[in-house]
């Protein structure tokens, strides 16, 4: 008997794309013969959905991966699945057979998806600047458009956030799934006069949707101070005076809800979806990601000794290498639009404008090689030794030479200070630093 429902994964991130066919599935794996190189992208089992029927018509493993189709980026369109917690305490995929056992069918599963883009409203403080889409409840297998509407849009205008489709279960694929296909990744504009038909004059824009006479987004300037400001402020497209030119995008995030009425009970669950830009470096991962934050939130800031493995430290170092590989380190070390410049512009405590690192050390290739050598040495199974060069969260405002040179270096955290690893990542590394240096040390006499 089904006791509860879950949507898994509880957070699914789509990536923009204007191509008609979603991106095929793949894994990013380390090549054992080229352990210091880029991760290899290995094609994986991919589900093909018939857009009309909503059925999965076949699965296949692509012979090669292509991120574009007819010159357009292929969107990453994730599936979310409904899982059931049964009386046996098991969490398992909800299938048509399980529904039948409850005298229900796939039609009894009802979905609702609500997504929004609050970027402009977040800055103007005007609720009428919220752009939102709501499918209302549905149980069919047609595509449901996620049309973003807004009180301050010109009449009839919308921003397409993509669509969702309840995948029709079949004998071969009896699981209960929904697919979220994001928007194309377009930019939309604002005007104070009714937009003319056809393509806007601004080549960046797909359409002009925002009525600059009704809302304040066009021409908006972040005020000084205040808790609503991001740090740094002004991270929107502005004119020479810093006034918003009214750009909007089709990024969004929101909730997927599922409801099932069986035997006089109503079971429900929800998950989250979001859409962001394509991964233009799909063979690299950032040094600190949302997954690290979630892991810390779930399991706490410290690791158990049994969790502290060299493989996990190696993964962090690999991500450090992949991050530094994408950085223009000589430019980021110069005083300018960089952490080096940001440190000097801070009202308090501030510091003399200077590069962060000795300029002779920041050649990008040399730094990439240095991180590769770290990775190589870790593969000898000797313990990491670099626990002390990691920046503690309490040190993000340490603008001394030594403080600014801690790792990760030259990168900004979400709070405007220097980036740190999560406490949990730091604890993982330092736990191993404290342990035996050489691998065979079992310690016991």
């Amino acid at each position, binding site marked *: 008997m089904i006791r509860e429902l879950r949507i898994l994964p509880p957070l699914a991130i789509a990536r923009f794309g204007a191509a008609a066919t979603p991106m095929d599935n793949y894994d990013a794996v380390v090549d054992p013969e080229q352990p210091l*190189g880029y991760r290899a992208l290995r094609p994986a089992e991919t589900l093909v959905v018939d857009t009309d029927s909503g059925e999965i018509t076949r699965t296949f493993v692509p012979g090669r991966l292509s991120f574009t189709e007819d010159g357009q980026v292929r969107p990453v369109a994730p599936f979310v699945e409904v899982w059931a917690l049964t009386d046996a305490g098991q969490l398992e995929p909800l299938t048509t057979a399980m529904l039948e056992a409850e005298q229900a069918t796939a039609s009894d599963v009802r979905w609702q998806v609500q997504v929004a883009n609050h970027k402009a409203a977040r800055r103007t403080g005007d609720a009428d600047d919220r752009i939102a889409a709501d499918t209302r409840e549905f149980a069919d297998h047609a595509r449901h458009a996620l049309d973003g509407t807004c009180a301050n849009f010109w009449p009839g205008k919308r921003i397409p956030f993509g669509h969702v489709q309840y995948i029709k279960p079949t004998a071969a694929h009896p699981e209960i799934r929904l697919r979220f296909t994001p928007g194309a990744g377009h930019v939309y504009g604002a005007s104070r006069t009714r937009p003319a038909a056809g393509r806007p004059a601004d080549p960046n824009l797909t359409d002009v949707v925002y009525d600059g006479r009704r809302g304040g987004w066009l021409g908006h300037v972040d005020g000084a101070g205040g808790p609503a400001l991001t740090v740094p402020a002004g991270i929107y497209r502005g004119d020479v005076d810093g006034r918003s030119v009214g750009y909007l995008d089709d990024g969004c995030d929101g909730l997927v809800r599922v409801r099932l009425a069986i035997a006089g009970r109503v079971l429900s669950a929800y998950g989250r979806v979001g859409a962001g830009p394509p991964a233009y470096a799909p063979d690299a991962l950032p040094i600190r990601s949302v997954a690290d934050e979630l892991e810390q939130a779930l399991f706490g800031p410290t690791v158990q000794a049994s969790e502290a493995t060299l493989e996990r430290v190696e993964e962090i170092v690999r991500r450090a290498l992949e991050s530094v590989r994408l950085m223009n380190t000589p430019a980021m070390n110069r005083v300018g639009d960089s952490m080096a410049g940001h440190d000097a512009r801070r009202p308090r405590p501030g510091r003399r404008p200077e590069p962060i690192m000795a300029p002779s050390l920041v050649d990008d290739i040399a730094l990439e090689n240095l991180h590769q050598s770290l990775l190589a040495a870790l593969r000898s199974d000797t313990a990491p030794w670099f626990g002390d060069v990691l920046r503690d969260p309490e040190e993000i405002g340490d603008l001394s030479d030594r403080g600014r040179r801690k790792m990760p270096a030259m990168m900004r955290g979400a709070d405007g200070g220097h980036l740190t690893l999560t406490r949990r990542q730091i604890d993982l590394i330092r736990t191993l630093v404290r342990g035996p240096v050489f691998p065979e040390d079992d310690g*016991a006499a």
Partner: protein
Amino acid sequence: MRSRISRHLRNVPGAPPAADRALDEGLTTAPGVGEPALPPPELNGRDYAIFLLRLAAEIEHGLMVQYLFTAYSLGGPTVPEGRQADVRAWQETILGIAKEEMAHFVTVENLLTALSGPLNFNREEFPHDTVLYPFGFKLQPASLGSLAAYICAESPAEWGVPEEQEIKERAEVGTGAPVNRVGNLYAELIRILRDPTLVPSSAFDAGSVAFQASWDEWGRGYREGARGREAMSSLPQLPAPELLIIEVGSRAAALDAIEQVGEQGEGLEPGTENESHFQRFLAIYRGMKELGDGTGVRPLATNPTTDLEGPDVGPAEDPNTTTPIVNEEANLWAHLFNVRYRKLLVNLSHAFELSDDPGDRAALGPRGTLIHRTFSEMYNLRAIAGQIVVLPIDGAQPDGPLAGPPFQIPHTLMLPPDESGRWRLHRDILDAADTMIDRLRSEGSAGGRDYLAALAQMDAIERDQLELLIAGSSRTPAGSGAPTP
């Protein structure tokens, strides 16, 4: 003993004739205040200072290597239950001291650069030359005897600790002679450099700072010069190493550098407990005495060498001879270790040949790359040592002594005079490393295979870069070459 060195030490004013006591006793009988300080015959003051600094470089280099070996010996299955953290702390303390010796070594090279003297990245290896060293160079695992020798070498003139006699006697038993204090050499250097009649102010080249190592480039997040206490982040019960990498452009800076380096070794000031090398080794000595001599230590062979038939080879139980690494796999790893050790020293010495031009800080050159690669080789030495110390030195005696990192000095550390030749030397060393890596991958056991694959790829990447540097460099000495004497 090298007569080209010892004859100058013999002639130090007031020095006794016994050559093996010259450094210790001769230098401490230096002239008093107001008494003229004469350099030895054949040398003027500047040359004598350079002579002493070159000795200091060898000593710091030698101590660093011996301390690393001893640190690597700590740990393993004989550590008593419940004492792992103590032994690990000793190991980290000695590794920290070795890092500080590396900084001393680099600062001494800075001093040589400031005096426009020839740099010295060399050192003696077994057989040792006692007059130059505080004690005979010996790679040996941690024991009360080896710790006693280190304590004596780093000791101040007045100890003020109850175990003084015991430790001196134990050190002498282990080394075969009383251990000389490193501090004497620095005291003599201060005496010479302080006197403008011996070393004129014009001898200090302020412009040479651009060629010197700086904390900015070499500090790697460790503490800069300011003395004080700060705990390690990972092992908070221990003070963090403090790297004294001091640039020298004047007499005052030279004297300050030498005083700081000397103080870090023997410091006895109130509040410096656990800070000077003397105090830190003493604490470990006391800890090991309480735990039991040699407990918690891997049985590494003394003076392990890749040379199976060298002139100094002796029985494994004789601490005054070398022990050949006859285990074939361990021997291959040891060869690879020696090659990477050479690579480290060549990277370091090459970095000193290239300037960090303060007038063009935006210019990126190979100096920074060489500095990073020097650190990369430190990581490699640690990784390879980890493979070596688990292998018996003789495969036929699996329960016998274990092999250890041999730290054998290459046939030369002189750099070719032009950049093209220097980059070719780097490539030659990679060739030698690749041979060892290939053999280990084909002939070795499973140990270290993942590391070898990564190292091979790392070397291939560097080789591609070297080909570009060789193609782009001329055969004439580079404009940013060595500082003008």
